[in-house]
């Protein structure tokens, strides 16, 4: 399998069992922004872990436990390298949402004072809004939202005014919008937020699976992402953060693994990153995520980005053929990640998704966990198609043909 000249979709697709199910139609899976499919090396790594070396990690003397620990920590090192950081700064959580809550609760509860401001954006996923709202309610802080303009871009002017005039303590922003596809200038945002002493958190749930992303290059304090969107399993997410941030933070969840000593008078904490991992970690899931990262690295993240950029451009052109269809977000595929949301006049997104499903095409319809953005856009739902390495132009063609038929069907 060589990928020197870009991605060979047919070859890759063979690695994904669900795309090769026996019987029935071919699955045209265009909902990778919700969750991705898994290649056999990922499934195989987890199965092999359970069949060969399953044991609890970190405290066992016997060989099996030592092997389990080694596989778990080796996975951590590979995931850390994948986003340009090191073991100390790589905390496993259950998903991206927990990682955002970790920062909001552990940092926010101890650092936010009444009147302080947390800045997020109108295009955030609920997971980067609700934790801040909960913690703000308890601390008396306020949550303000960077507005989104008609082209699906953040109003950076608003941000500079707010940084100048308000006591902004945190700026937490998504790297790629899961609805509009917009790639936000997070490095630039981090620079200006830092110059006002604010903490910068980047939600990489939609970027890390699809393009090269480096914590160091973004210059943010924390980057979160989630395993199941990057060819890995459910049940695992990541908080990648600077050791300075983590060192200065008290722990969040308490329990086994994260302690140095526990007595009835109080406790002291383990070294980084374990200080933030309470209880038995998602061991098999970490092994699976390690395999996913290996798989993506074998393809090459620059190739992944290149492939998906081309496919997104192709998709946007092809969608424009559907009568009356409008695409939300930036027009230029260079400026966007994979999610492509669109609207078809007089056909509700639910009906779109249902009708194309009968042709084996999976797309998402709804608010995409971004209700504030839906309000800004003045809609209650959109239809969204999103790709990953296993998608090719044939998938886009199938989508467009199904959309045409859905449109005609509803028009009657």
């Amino acid at each position: 399998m060589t990928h020197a000249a870009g991605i060979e979709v047919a070859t890759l697709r063979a690695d994904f069992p669900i795309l090769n199910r026996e019987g029935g139609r071919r699955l045209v899976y265009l909902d990778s922004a919700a969750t991705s499919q898994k290649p056999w090396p990922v499934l195989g790594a987890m199965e092999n872990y359970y069949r060969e070396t399953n044991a609890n990690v970190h405290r066992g003397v016997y060989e099996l436990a030592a092997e389990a620990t080694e596989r778990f920590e080796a996975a951590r090192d590979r995931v850390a390298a994948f986003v340009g950081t090191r073991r100390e700064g790589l905390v496993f959580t259950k998903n991206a949402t927990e990682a955002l809550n970790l920062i909001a609760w552990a940092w926010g509860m101890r650092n936010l004072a009444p009147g302080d401001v947390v800045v997020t954006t109108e295009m955030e996923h609920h997971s980067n809004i609700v934790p801040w709202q909960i913690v703000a309610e308890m601390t008396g802080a306020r949550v303000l939202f960077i507005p989104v303009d008609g082209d699906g871009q953040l109003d950076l002017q608003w941000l500079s005014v707010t940084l100048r005039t308000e006591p902004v303590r945190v700026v937490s922003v998504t790297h790629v919008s899961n609805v509009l596809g917009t790639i936000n200038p997070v490095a630039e945002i981090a620079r200006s937020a830092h110059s006002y002493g604010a903490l910068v958190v980047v939600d990489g749930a939609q970027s890390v699976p699809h393009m090269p992303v480096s914590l160091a290059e973004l210059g943010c304090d924390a980057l979160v992402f989630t395993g199941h969107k990057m060819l890995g399993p459910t049940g695992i997410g990541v908080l990648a953060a600077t050791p300075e941030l983590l060192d200065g933070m008290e722990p969040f969840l308490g329990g086994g693994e994260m302690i140095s000593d526990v007595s009835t008078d109080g406790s002291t904490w383990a070294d980084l990153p374990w200080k933030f991992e309470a209880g038995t970690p998602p061991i098999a899931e970490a092994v699976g995520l390690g395999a996913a990262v290996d798989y993506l690295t074998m393809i090459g993240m620059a190739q992944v980005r290149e492939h998906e950029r081309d496919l997104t451009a192709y998709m946007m052109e092809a969608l424009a053929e559907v009568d009356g269809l409008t695409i939300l977000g930036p027009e230029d595929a260079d400026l966007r990640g994979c999610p492509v949301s669109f609207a078809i006049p007089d056909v509700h997104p639910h009906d779109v998704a249902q009708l194309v499903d009968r042709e084996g095409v999976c797309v998402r319809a709804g608010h995409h966990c971004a209700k504030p953005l839906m309000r800004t856009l003045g809609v209650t739902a959109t239809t969204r198609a999103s790709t990953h390495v296993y998608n090719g132009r044939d998938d886009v063609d199938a989508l467009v043909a199904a959309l045409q038929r859905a449109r005609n069907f509803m028009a009657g």
Partner: protein
Amino acid sequence: MGLDDLYQQIILDHYRNPRHRGHLDDPGMSVDHQNPLCGDQVHLDVTIRDGRIVELAHAGDGCSISQASASMMSEAAHGKSIEDAHRAIDNVLALIHGEAPADEDLLGDAVALEGVAKYPARVRCALLGWMALRDALPAPSHAEKGAGVGQQ
């Protein structure tokens, strides 16, 4: 097509030509219902006189199933006694969960909602209008409810 049991002609007809669509000028009761999973909305105005639904109107925004179902609900409920309306709601609930056959006398066109049972993701869409109606009605009195069950 395979989806024909969901998108039956009668459902598409109610979607394209909704009955009782709009607002009442001076409703006895108004309720708003939302499906938090998808954002579908129904606004329902109801006027009850002498234990009977004498006027009702629905408005809202959503998919063909939720809007057609609200239309069929309005048609079925119009003129019904409160008790019969509750019976109709119970029958739709049972029907959509695949637990009982449709009672055509109670439901009218809404018998077509039977097809939704196979599409769990759409059950909430189909129920939106009916749940709004239940909220808008006074609860059936105990005696009457008992009688209602006895009659079935």
